[in-house]
Every structure is written in structure tokens, then in C-alpha cells.
């Protein structure tokens, strides 16, 4: 049960996917060292049938959600019991006993929660984590820190209920006992490590998990030694979804020095039952065709703020956070329960001191609520005021900015204005919310001279970094009509100017600052499109300044 013939493993058919998911769960039941399983599926009958199988996992199970508090996880003072008995009662946290945690809406787990759970899994107290990921979009996914610590990941979203065939009952007890006796031939370690490396899997947890999975599979089938079958299944279950490159792709040749590849080829011929090649093919067959594009998309997204801005803390709006001691006023809201909890231990002493027999709460007990909200965004407009622009499209560029400003106003964003012309760039307007002032300065924008694009980017970057420190989330909007022709040092050298601009663009990207490139030229300029690519930015050619179309596309680009 749960195991098809060898052939069925090689096709990503829905039924095979379901069997693999079931098998992964069985292996997890046998060995808690596998950490857990990430299940990507929308809520529905298929996920329900899978959730029913979670009963296989030994030990207690708790459901947690992404907003679970530290107190629930780690335990703390049990207020009601403490007050009722007049003695200190400690509440047990969910993590204090080994068991299975089922994290719902896992894609919404914050880095903080992920770090806490990761720490728990790392501690090696036989916790298992089942992360139910309901992400709808490709970029809504489980926190990589957690995904890294779960051996398995299955995607049930493409399975229909008919394909989620019912499986007979399973009891891991015998396999758990048997697991201790399973031995691993020496070359298996080498093979798993090599395969992981060929798929560009950097972390060493992956081959370790694969090794454990192979052993658990051998135990499941009552074998004494791990064999090629177990290795293949372990690779499919543990390594396939972690792949970041196709073996033999260009990228790999850069990463892996030649000699090792030779060694690999020699090794595989003599000892192994199942050559690397076959395993590689088996895993490859499981990978989606668009793997490389998906990875590129993921990399581009990594760490970048989506349109809404980075998180910051406040005391009025947003997601609740643990409350802290503080003073009322300044719009702060009191956290009644936390305040009572802080006052509780003192009641005996205070009653003795004051002689009054009523609840006594003092100002130092006050706890205030805190919330995490999204920070404001800063749009750094970087405007080309060079000769070519001034003559042709400067007016339209200004129109475009006003459109953007209107949107910025609607979102209550901040704006800054940098212009570049001649040999240098200048900050015309430091970050502000005064949009009237911005418009006035823009109206007075003088034109003429060369196009020192690199200098403009540098100035914009400085503004953006300063804004990040103040807790804003900056986006750089570059408006230009063409080629850089003034280098950073002020010399009129097209080649050097273009190289400088590219270099600065890379710097912006490495700082993970969002950008938007608007080409105001009559004809789309390939150099600008290339620049946008380096920036990881959206490129918008604006050949005929159709205000409505421009407004729409910019809004879409910024919304992201």
C-alpha cells in the first residue's frame, strides 16, 4: 500500500503524487528525525482525506495557527488557576512535550514564528511539524527556514478527490522497532550527497534527511539493509522539491569544479546497484518543466518588500504582538488581561500594606498593546533632465510623475525627487509628504546637458538607504529616455557610462530596493530594458504618453 510499481514513480500523475504523499507520511510516522511534512493544498476534501491520515503519527497532536502566541507555545503563568488557588500555577506550552504540531495557513507564518518552530525542531525532542500551506500564488509559500527543516513537501493542489484513493490502515510500531536494525552500505552516503549537489542543493540537511528517509523506507518494508529502491524513493521524496538547478545545466558547471565531476563518473560505475544517472533521470522526471523560471522568480522576489511595505511596530493598528509594560496616553491601548496578570502576584502584599480588600492595580502594572503594521513607502523619483529629454519629452515625464503623485497621495506615500543632468545628480526634494511642494519643484525643473544615469542612480540609492533606516520602504522610479553618456567621474564616455549605470543597478538590487524604469523615449531603448533587468525592476516603455494607460500600468507595477 502506498507503493506503486517503479514505473509509476517516474510520472507526476495525480495518483502517484497522492501515493508519494501517503508514503512520506508513513516514513514520518516511523522516524521523527525527518522533521515533518509541508502539504500544499487548498482546504477541501483532498486535504481532509490527507489530514485524516495524520492520525498515523504517534503522540499528541496540536493545531496551531500563524498568530499563535509565545505563551501558548512555550507556556507561562496560568492566570485563572493561579488566582483561583492563590498559588503559582505554571501553564504548559505546546512545545513542552514531544508531539505533532499541525500549522494551518502555514504560508502566513512570520519569520519570528518560523524561527521559534525551527528551534524546536532542531532541539531534537522528537517534535513533528505538519505545515498546511494554502498558498494560492507561487510566491505565497512556506517560510524557507521551516521548509528547510521539513524532510518532505507534497503538493496536493492538482489532485481531485477521485484520485485520492483511500488507503488501508497503517501502524508504524513494528517499523519503528525495526528501524534501529537497518544498516546503510557505505556508498549510499556518497551517492545521496552527490545527487544533492548535482541538483544544486546547498544545505547539508537535505542529504541527511534523504539518508533518514531511505532508512525509514527500508524499515517500512522490513529490510535489514538500505538498497537502491529505498534510495530512489528517498531522493524523490526529499531531494526533488529542493532542486535549484538541472544537473548538467550551465549554472552547475560554474559551481562544480571539473575534477569532481570526473570522480563522480568513475565512482558510479563500480559499486552501486542503481547508477546516479538513473536516479537523476527519475528526479528530473518529477521536476516541473518551468523549474528554472520559477527559481529565477523566487530569487527576484527574495527579501524584497512587496508593494505594501516592510513591517514596523506601532501601538494602534496591525497584527497584535506581545504587550509590554508602558504608560497609557499617546493613543496606547491597555491590555487588560496582561495588566491583571502583572498585578496578580502583588495582591497579597498590597492587601497587607493597604488594609483594603479589593483588587489593587497600580500604574506599574499597566501593560499596553502593541501592533505590527506596514510601514509607509517612499517613492524616489529619479528624473532625467538631460538635453535630449529636455528637448523632447521632459514635459511628458513631468505629466507621468504627476500621475504617480496622485496615486502616491491616495496611498499616503512619501516622495523624494532626484534629477540628473550635465555631469551630476542633485536632490531636488528630500523625502516629504508635501505633494504641493513636489509639484512646484517639478514645474521648475531645468533641463539640458548630458545624461549621467549612474550618478542619478547613486543619488537615488543614497536617498533610499537613508529612508530604509528611518523605517520607510523605498521604491526607486527612474524616468529617462535613453542612454547614459556621462560616466560616474563626469567624463563624457558612453561605454564607461553604460558600465557604471549597470554596476550601480546591481548595487541597488543587492540592497533589495524595489525599482521601476519608465522609458520616456520615442522608441523603446534596449539599454534601458537591460538596466531594468539588472535592477530586477519592471520596465515600462511609454512611447505615446497616454495618461490613462500609463496610470494603469504604473499602478499595477507598484501594486505588485
Amino acid at each position, binding site marked *: 500500500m502506498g507503493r506503486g510499481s517503479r514505473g509509476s514513480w517516474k510520472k507526476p500523475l495525480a495518483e502517484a503524487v497522492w501515493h508519494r504523499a501517503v508514503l512520506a507520511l508513513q516514513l514520518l510516522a516511523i522516524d521523527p528525525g525527518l522533521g515533518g511534512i509541508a502539504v500544499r493544498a487548498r482546504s477541501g476534501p483532498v486535504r481532509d482525506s490527507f489530514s485524516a491520515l495524520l492520525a498515523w503519527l504517534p503522540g499528541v497532536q496540536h493545531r496551531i495557527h500563524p498568530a499563535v502566541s509565545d505563551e501558548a507555545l512555550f507556556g507561562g503563568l496560568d492566570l485563572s488557576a493561579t488566582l483561583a488557588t492563590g498559588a503559582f500555577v505554571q501553564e504548559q506550552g505546546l512545545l513542552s512535550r514531544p508531539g505533532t504540531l499541525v500549522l494551518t495557513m502555514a504560508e502566513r507564518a512570520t519569520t519570528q514564528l518560523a524561527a*521559534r518552530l525551527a*528551534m524546536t525542531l532542531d532541539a531534537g525532542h522528537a517534535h513533528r511539524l505538519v505545515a498546511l500551506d494554502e498558498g494560492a500564488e507561487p510566491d505565497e509559500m512556506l517560510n524557507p527556514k521551516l521548509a528547510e527543516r521539513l524532510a518532505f513537501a507534497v503538493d496536493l493542489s492538482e489532485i481531485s478527490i477521485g484520485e485520492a484513493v483511500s488507503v488501508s490502515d497503517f501502524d508504524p510500531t513494528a517499523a519503528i522497532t525495526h528501524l534501529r536494525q537497518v544498516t546503510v552500505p557505505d556508498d549510499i552516503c556518497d551517492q*545521496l550527497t552527490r545527487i544533492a*549537489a548535482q541538483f544544486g542543493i546547498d544545505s547539508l540537511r537535505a*542529504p541527511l534527511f534523504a539518508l533518514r528517509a531511505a532508512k525509514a523506507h527500508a524499515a517500512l518494508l522490513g529490510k535489514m539493509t538500505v538498497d537502491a529502491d529505498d534510495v530512489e524513493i528517498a531522493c524523490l521524496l526529499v531531494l526533488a522539491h529542493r532542486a535549484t538547478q538541472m544537473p548538467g545545466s550551465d549554472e552547475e558547471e560554474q559551481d562544480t*569544479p571539473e575534477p569532481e565531476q570526473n570522480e563522480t563518473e568513475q565512482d558510479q560505475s563500480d559499486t552501486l546497484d542503481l547508477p546516479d544517472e538513473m536516479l537523476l533521470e527519475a528526479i528530473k522526471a518529477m521536476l516541473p518543466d518551468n523549474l528554472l523560471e520559477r527559481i529565477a522568480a523566487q530569487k527576484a522576489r527574495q527579501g524584497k518588500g512587496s508593494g505594501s511595505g516592510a513591517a514596523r*511596530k506601532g501601538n494602534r493598528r496591525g497584527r497584535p504582538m506581545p504587550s509590554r509594560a508602558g504608560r497609557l496616553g499617546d493613543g496606547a491601548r491597555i491590555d487588560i488581561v496582561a495588566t491583571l496578570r502583572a498585578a496578580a502576584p502583588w495582591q497579597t502584599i498590597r492587601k497587607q500594606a493597604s488594609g483594603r480588600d479589593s483588587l489593587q492595580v497600580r500604574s506599574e502594572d499597566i501593560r499596553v498593546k502593541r501592533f505590527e503594521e506596514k510601514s509607509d513607502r517612499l517613492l524616489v523619483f529619479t528624473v532625467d533632465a538631460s538635453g535630449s529629454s529636455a528637448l523632447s519629452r521632459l514635459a511628458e515625464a513631468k505629466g507621468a510623475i504627476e500621475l504617480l503623485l496622485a496615486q502616491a497621495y491616495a496611498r499616503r506615500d512619501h516622495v523624494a525627487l532626484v534629477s540628473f543632468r550635465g555631469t551630476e545628480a542633485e536632490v531636488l526634494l528630500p523625502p516629504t509628504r508635501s505633494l504641493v511642494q513636489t509639484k512646484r519643484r517639478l514645474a521648475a525643473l531645468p533641463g539640458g546637458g548630458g545624461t549621467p544615469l549612474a550618478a542619478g542612480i547613486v543619488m537615488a540609492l543614497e536617498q533610499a538607504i537613508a529612508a530604509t533606516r528611518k523605517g520607510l520602504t523605498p521604491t526607486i522610479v527612474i524616468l529617462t529616455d535613453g542612454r547614459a553618456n556621462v560616466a560616474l567621474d563626469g567624463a563624457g564616455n558612453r561605454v564607461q557610462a553604460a558600465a557604471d549605470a549597470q554596476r550601480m543597478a546591481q548595487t541597488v538590487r543587492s*540592497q533589495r530596493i524595489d525599482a521601476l524604469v519608465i522609458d520616456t523615449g520615442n522608441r523603446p531603448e534596449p539599454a534601458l530594458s537591460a538596466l531594468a533587468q539588472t535592477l530586477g525592476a519592471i520596465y515600462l516603455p511609454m512611447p505615446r504618453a497616454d495618461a490613462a494607460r500609463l496610470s494603469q500600468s504604473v499602478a499595477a507595477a507598484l501594486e505588485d
Partner: protein
Amino acid sequence: MKHPFPFSAIVGQAEMKQAMILTAIDPSIGGVLVFGDRGTGKSTAVRALAALLPPIMAVQGCPVNSAKVADVPDWAMLDEKTLVEMPTPVVDLPLGATEDRVTGALDIEKALTKGEKAFQPGLLARANRGYLYIDEVNLLEDHIVDLLLDVAQSGENVVEREGLSIRHPARFVLVGSGNPEEGELRPQLLDRFGLSVEVASPKDIATRVDVIKRRDAYENDYTAFMLRWQAEDAAIRDQILTARRALAELTTPDKTLHDVAELCLALGSDGLRGELTLLKAARAYAAWRNDTALTRMHVKEMAPMALRHRLRRDPLDEAGSGTRVARIVEETLG
């Protein structure tokens, strides 16, 4: 109980291991920050360090591990004060820790049951004379960071809250680890770490296979594995003790002081802490190698880990700060 994975059995990661050993030789270097990718053995190394450290003498049951009977704080209310040998404390500061747990707070149990105002020491007290380890240090809540900055600087924890007024020594070596992709550290906190190292997964297959095999042996052939590597750990511990003695004898020529100052000037690192740490690290390194005099070589070797996190951030420099330090070291010291 299973002991942590032995320090000596960690494959590769020479710089990280070296940095940790140096703090064991001279705790005043002031801690290590380990930044790197997932799955590179950051936490493993710190937990392994605990087993490696030589034991200390401390008063039995003292909440702040006092070295002398006279130093035991009054609030500890110890009746019997005897010195015992105990392992160097390595205290974990988990991310979810509240302010109360870190600094110590009113002992709620005593307050409730006896109506007594007593102090319950926190993690900072327990870490005194030892190590304080923060995994995912870049995700630590801001108010806890503020607290740590102050204590790490003054070596003293002052608790003025809930009607308590307590101060106790809290001198510890701060060890932090994290993944820089998830957030940056404030420069003030960066500065509190003496040394900083960057780790990456080993790239060559043979090393990677080694890592997997040792981990597997640790999990499945525990007894034999520990027997083999605990001996190696003991050898390192002896070498640390030898180095501590050698450190006292080590001379520092003026020429080296000049080198250190010149290097820090060229790098434009903020403040004098960089110079002091580099000097201490170079001395500890020389003692570890059992060299009799401090030379330019020691300074050059230690410069990247002592200085890379103290440079002003330059967004226009694509190379990592480690590369920048190495480049300037080459330019200045040749």
C-alpha cells in the same frame, strides 16, 4: 542524556572554529557572531563549544556563578557557601524570551504564596562568567536587543522594576548566529561582538560526504563516535589551557601595535574597539599557536574576523566586507 555533537568532529568551517577557540582562550575578546546560510552547522558549533570549555570554580548554588564566597549577592540567600568545580555555563537565549526571563524579575511564586518580595534571577545572571548564545540574533526583538547592549557593555545587570532594585554582575561572551538574508543587525549590536565570521556550505563533494557520514555515525553509532571524538575534544581543551598560560607570557612589540593602528586607520573602522579586539585576537591566536612573540602574521590572519563587521557600510562596494578587509590588509601590511 545525549551529549552535543563534538566540536572536533565538525568538518571544515576552520574560521568559525578558530574564532570560538579564541574566545575560550581570552573571554575579553568579546564574543563571536556567526552569519551564514541555512544548514551550515552554526548552531551545532555553538552547542559543541560548551563541552569543550574548561570548567570554572564557582560557589555552589550561586545564581550568578560567583568565583568567591564574598561575591555571592545577598538576595541569593545562600546558607552554605562552598566552592565547587562546574562546567562553564552556556546559556541559550531563545527568541521568545520575555524581558522578565532575560533580566530576572519578581519571584511570582514567593510573592503569591508567602507575600514576599524576592528576586528571581534571569538568563543574564545564569550566563555570568560563561557564554550567552542567541540563535537567529537578527530576529531578536528590539527591546531585548537594547537591554543586551547595555549589559554587554557594562558587565552588570541592573533591575529597577516592580519595586525591586537589584544589580548583579553579568559578564558573558556573546555568541550570536543568524542568516543575513532575514534581516540585518544594528551597527551598535554588531560592535558588541568581538569577532565575526561568515560560514557557507562546503562546496566539494568529499567534504560534504564527510559531514553526512559523521552526522550519521553520531546518530546511529553514538557510543563509539563519542569515544573517538571526545578524546580529540579533550586535546583541544588542553591546548586552550596551555594557550591561556602562554598568553600571560606573550610580549607585544611596539611594531605590532603600530601595524594594528595603521590597519584600523586605513579601514576607517569606527572607534577604538576594533583596534583593541584585533590586538587581543592576535595575541590569543599567537598563544594558541604557541608562538613566543606577536608578529605581523598574527595580525594579518586575525584582521578579517576582528574587523569585517566594524566597517562603515558602503553600498557602492559590491565585494563583501571580508574581501575589503583582506584587500586593505594586503595594501597596508604587504
